[in-house]
């Protein structure tokens, strides 16, 4: 069983020190756009159609609905924002619950940035890259970036992110225009896009024990933390317990593998 090792020895790259011109970067940008169009972008776009409808229900304009996708770029936080405004929730409570729902970006940004930056990457570019990180971009990036030569990864990342952002913005606008016309089962199908897609794509990306265990622990812990963790902190607790558990188990399995 061969693992893809994320370094400069990837088969795509014969000579890592050859000049990396704008042409090569542009090629990776459009290659990423093509890969995004072949699956991930349509899926994340469809899963955010309902956000447009929620924005309209809450009394916002279509510009705000689309801007929420470009600025917040996190489905659950957008659903929370418009749902809470519609329910006339107090603003500080809205801000706090959105913040709690977005804690997941910390480990995602920490794990993907070292893969795409080089020593010469400037801070504004890093800030923009961090902003583009969302679950789809992260899950697909972790899986696809190891196959891209280091110098092309930033271009690949931005090509992928920009395609997803553009498609999803259009879907948000479409959802704003369409809301209320979908029968119940189809509306449920739109919401179901996120769970089925993430379980499948995380399974696909799980090459090592630690990834598989983290996935299983995360799913299995969901009912427990929902019952026993303080409201709002359940996902944080779940991530730390499930992730650390997977990390410890994988270390033991590896140690046993070496001993055997």
């Amino acid at each position, binding site marked *: 069983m061969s693992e893809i090792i994320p370094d400069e020895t990837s088969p795509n790259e014969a000579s890592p020190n050859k000049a990396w011109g704008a042409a090569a970067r542009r090629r990776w940008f459009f290659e990423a756009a093509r890969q995004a169009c072949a699956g991930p972008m349509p899926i994340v776009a469809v899963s955010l159609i309902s956000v447009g409808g929620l924005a309209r229900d809450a009394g916002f304009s279509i510009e705000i609905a689309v801007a929420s996708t470009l600025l917040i770029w996190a489905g659950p936080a957008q659903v929370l924002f418009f749902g809470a405004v519609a329910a006339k929730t107090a603003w500080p409570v809205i801000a706090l619950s959105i913040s709690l729902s977005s804690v997941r970006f910390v480990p995602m940004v920490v794990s993907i940035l070292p893969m795409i930056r080089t020593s010469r990457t400037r801070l504004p570019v890093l800030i923009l890259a961090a902003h583009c990180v969302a*679950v789809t971009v992260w899950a697909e990036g972790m899986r696809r970036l190891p196959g891209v030569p280091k110098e092309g990864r930033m271009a690949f990342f931005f090509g992928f992110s920009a395609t997803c952002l553009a498609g999803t913005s259009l879907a948000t606008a479409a959802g704003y225009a369409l809301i209320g016309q979908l029968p119940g089962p189809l509306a449920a199908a739109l919401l179901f896009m996120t769970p089925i897609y993430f379980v499948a794509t995380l399974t696909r990306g799980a090459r090592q024990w630690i990834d598989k265990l983290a996935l299983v622990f995360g799913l299995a812990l969901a009912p427990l933390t929902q019952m026993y963790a303080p409201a709002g902190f359940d996902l944080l607790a779940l991530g730390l317990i499930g992730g650390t558990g997977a990390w410890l188990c994988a270390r033991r399995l590896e140690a046993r593998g070496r001993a055997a």
Partner: protein
Amino acid sequence: MSGTLDQGLWPWIALICFGFLPSEIWRFLGLFLARGLDERSPWLAWVRAVATALLAGVVGKLLLAPNGALAGLPLWGRLGPLAFGMIVYFAARRSVIAAVLAGEAAIIAAGYWAG
């Protein structure tokens, strides 16, 4: 509500202060914590495991405590299509698209069946 929200800058201020910034601070924190971390640092294995578990937890929560139209389905109507989608995923030699299409077909069927 729409009467006040449609006017002027207030919706933009609300979106930025109560939607964008509370979410974005975590991306900034991640950016700060990632400084100087090497791609092959052993810490990253742990960070990635936490991120994967968190994402799986988000999925679990969406199915166990659903909002909107998904809440109209019984628990079997939400977990069954997920299981069916994953069976098709493996049967179709690890195809994500096949899993999504099969899961979607199953949940639409479950919706009409239960509704």
